[in-house]
């Protein structure tokens, strides 16, 4: 078991390293002007620029740069932003932004899970009746229509009708509602549809029939057998989603002006802030990999069939 964990951690590390290297190589395709603030660039002569690049170590072989990057990360030094927040330590930026994304993420995750599970249970219980159809319609809408459109409409209309401020103000709790709800919409659909599917699958299992023949009531079976077992495969995905809430949501943070992580990467890429891009990618990769890893551990914990020794990868991309 512990050997398996060690092995998995090493494997995850490998994945992270590969991701970072891939992105690192991609970044090298971009012009080096990303290492200057615009003003510096204009003011410097060509020689000054190359000297500056040299001092940054950008002209070193890729391998050396990577090594330096990883060493820095290892020592807890994430470097400084170049163009997005010139000279600001990246650690400071993260410290400012992560809490917003995290709290919104956690709140919406809580809502997604509770409402999503509620929806799933309702849909499974009233399978092929109107609650199921209604739920399906909701899921289809959320999944099929580009989220930008309905999120925007929700912002315009709901704030108009409720006379709420259009953007987020930290000191006004009503302005937290819409971002959190908007963030939860897809999650609710996701949990709902999968829980429904798993529950329906479970309900058709032989052991459920057997449980019924034992004289257990429908309610009891639903609660103690069907729901419990249907939740298990979803448990695996909770940690990834939880961890990735740190990454924030681009659209929602943008339209509600939430100073979270969501837009940071886009912005860093657009501004060619290579240091920042690299750190962010590293973080996302670590979060993703760690999430999957914790998910697997959790899965092994809740599902007695999975012994960690048999690395039984049940990592299917769930798609609605």
């Amino acid at each position, binding site marked *: 078991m512990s050997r398996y964990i060690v092995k998995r951690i090493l494997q995850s590390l490998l994945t992270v390293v590969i991701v970072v290297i891939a992105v690192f190589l991609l970044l090298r395709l971009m012009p080096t002007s990303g290492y200057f603030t615009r003003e510096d660039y204009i*003011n410097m002569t060509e020689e000054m620029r190359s000297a500056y690049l040299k001092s940054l170590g950008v002209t070193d072989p890729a391998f050396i740069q990577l090594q330096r990057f990883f060493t820095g990360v290892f020592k807890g030094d994430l470097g400084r932003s170049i163009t997005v927040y010139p000279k600001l330590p990246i650690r400071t930026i993260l410290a400012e932004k992560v809490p917003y994304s995290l709290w919104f993420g956690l709140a919406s995750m809580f809502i997604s899970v509770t409402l999503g599970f509620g929806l799933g249970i309702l849909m499974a219980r009233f399978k092929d009746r109107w609650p199921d159809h209604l739920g399906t319609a909701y899921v289809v809408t959320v999944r099929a229509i580009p989220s930008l459109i309905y999120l925007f409409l929700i912002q315009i209309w709901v704030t108009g009708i409720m006379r709420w*401020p259009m953007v987020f103000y930290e000191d006004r709790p009503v302005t937290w509602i819409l971002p959190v709800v908007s963030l939860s919409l897809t999650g609710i659909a996701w949990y709902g549809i999968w829980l429904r599917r798993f529950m329906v699958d479970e309900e058709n299992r032989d052991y459920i029939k057997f449980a019924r023949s034992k004289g257990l009531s429908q309610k009891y079976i639903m609660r103690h057998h069907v729901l419990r077992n249907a939740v298990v495969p979803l448990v695996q995905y909770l940690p990834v989603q939880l961890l990735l809430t740190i990454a924030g949501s681009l659209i929602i943070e943008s339209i509600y002006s939430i100073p979270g992580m969501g837009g940071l990467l886009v912005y860093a890429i657009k501004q060619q802030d290579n240091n920042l891009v690299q750190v962010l990618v590293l973080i996302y990769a670590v979060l993703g990999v760690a999430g999957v890893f914790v998910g697997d551990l959790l899965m092994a914990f809740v599902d007695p069939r999975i012994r960690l020794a048999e690395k039984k990868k049940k990592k299917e991309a769930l798609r609605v």
Partner: protein
Amino acid sequence: RGAGEAPDQYRTTYATEVKTLNYFLLLDTTALRVAANTMDGLVENDRYGKFVPSLAERWDHNEDYTEWTFYLRPGVKWVDSMGQETAWEVTADDFVEGMRFIAEPKNGIKNVGIIRKVISGLNGYYWDLVDIDDGVDIGKTREEALASFDSSVGVSAPDKYTVKYTLDNPTPYFLSYLVTELFFPLEKEFLDSVGAEDFGTTKEKLIFTGAYYLAEWQRDKEIRLAKNEHYWDADSVNVGQVSLQKVADDSIRVQMFQRGEVSATTLQGDQVKALEGTKWADNVFLDEKSSVTYWFAMNYTSDNPEARAFINNVNFRKALYHGIDRAKLLELVNPYEPEALLRNTIIPEDVIFDENGQDYTDYPLLKEVKERRTYDRELAQEYFQKAVDELTDGKGNIKGISPATVDMLPIAEIKADGKLPVQILFVHPTDPTKTREALLLQEMLRDTFDGQVELVLGQYVDDKYNDTIKPRRFDLLYDSFSFKYADPMAQLGRLVTDGSVNDGQYSFPEFDRLVEEADGKTSLTDRYEIFSRAERFLIDNAVIIPWQAGGGAYSMDTVVPFSTPRGGFGVTRFKYKGMILQQNPITADQYKMLEKAFRAELAPN
């Protein structure tokens, strides 16, 4: 006045985060706003545009305007981000330190070029340091060079409350420099305590002398200014708080105004039109124009051979000059009276006056330009035909050009076939209005030149300079530069060969010569006369094509008009000192009334 109590908070939005609030490094209007309101310089503009005392109580200058002495208001303390007075008083040394800071090349103060040749000794000092940093042996060590500042640069503090500037040339308009950030003071001890690197990167790393202090700076969310209770002129500050909210998605700004979430908004043309017949129509008024000028720049050294050939042909440039219906383009912004926004000259009107009070743009050579209507379809076609005759073999083949694929990626890739229509890459930002402008321009040229001029549209995603100008990935674009000080040199001096705003990299020795000649004159009339010839040269040869004035947008506002400082230079127009807010949005009638009253007050000044 609107009903109810006047609000105590001015709220507005900004779209991109400021990178630093180091007031010597102003990069965008948001930072300008903060600097304008948190920092006072020696002088300022009042609401009529007059230069009035600020940190300097009074000043004098020598006969030929080469020595200026300012006498400081004693007892003014620097204030920190809590609004508390610090131990430091604003003294003459702070102004010397400010100059020392911007004179240091390592601090990367971009705008220092504007005054390098004004303050005596500054230019030499600056380049010495640059040379030393580049490893050039100039017979001095860096320490020696730094030590020479006090003796060689024309700024000094004869006593605690006296600042003295020595200038290379007679500069009657010197006061207009003083409202720029370059002349703001800097407290050395504070700077040393935070370090030059970090100065201005958080609110704690700044101290203030202005009407407001920076009470909150939450990146990507809010910048909040609060009234400085220790301000020397606190009585003139009517609004207690200024809040700048970051709203990246600006499609909702008008909504936010209508719902009372922001104090002011500008409106695009179709937004104005859409408000027709609503209750908001009453609240729309046309703002004043600013001294900023937009012009079309052409790339004389483009990689696109077709465009290069045509742009280097004066007849073609004139064809564009007359063929672009600028007013039509401005209908997107101002559907009702687009002409009002046009500007035909490079130097703005109503800003520069000679000893006789004559407006520079009313000098005869320019007056004609200023008043002409440039759009002339027939004339444009005529010029175009001439250009075609000169540049093509008559069968639509452009002489000396073989087909090639021009790589201007990521902006565009052009298949130059060496034939008419001539393809010209027009580069514009991605925002919807600018995109529509580009499309309209494209259609306009197509229409005017019968399809022989084909605008290829390219967008830069974020940064005009880095994405297009620097890598020279454009044939045509519009650019704008704010007017820095009250002399034509401020713009024309930057438009010479290798000038810093010469985007097109053209070289017209005649123009360069005229500018040099003008700059040598000390008599304003002479000076302006020669400048007007130089400017006329640019326009006659359509080297660049002036387009429109900045500002002048349709707006809705709760700020009582004309209550804030007025002036075309430096940070003046961003100041909120004196600003009065009202509960309800200003109505157009109110605006007109106040404007009339204001003009009347202004006249005697």
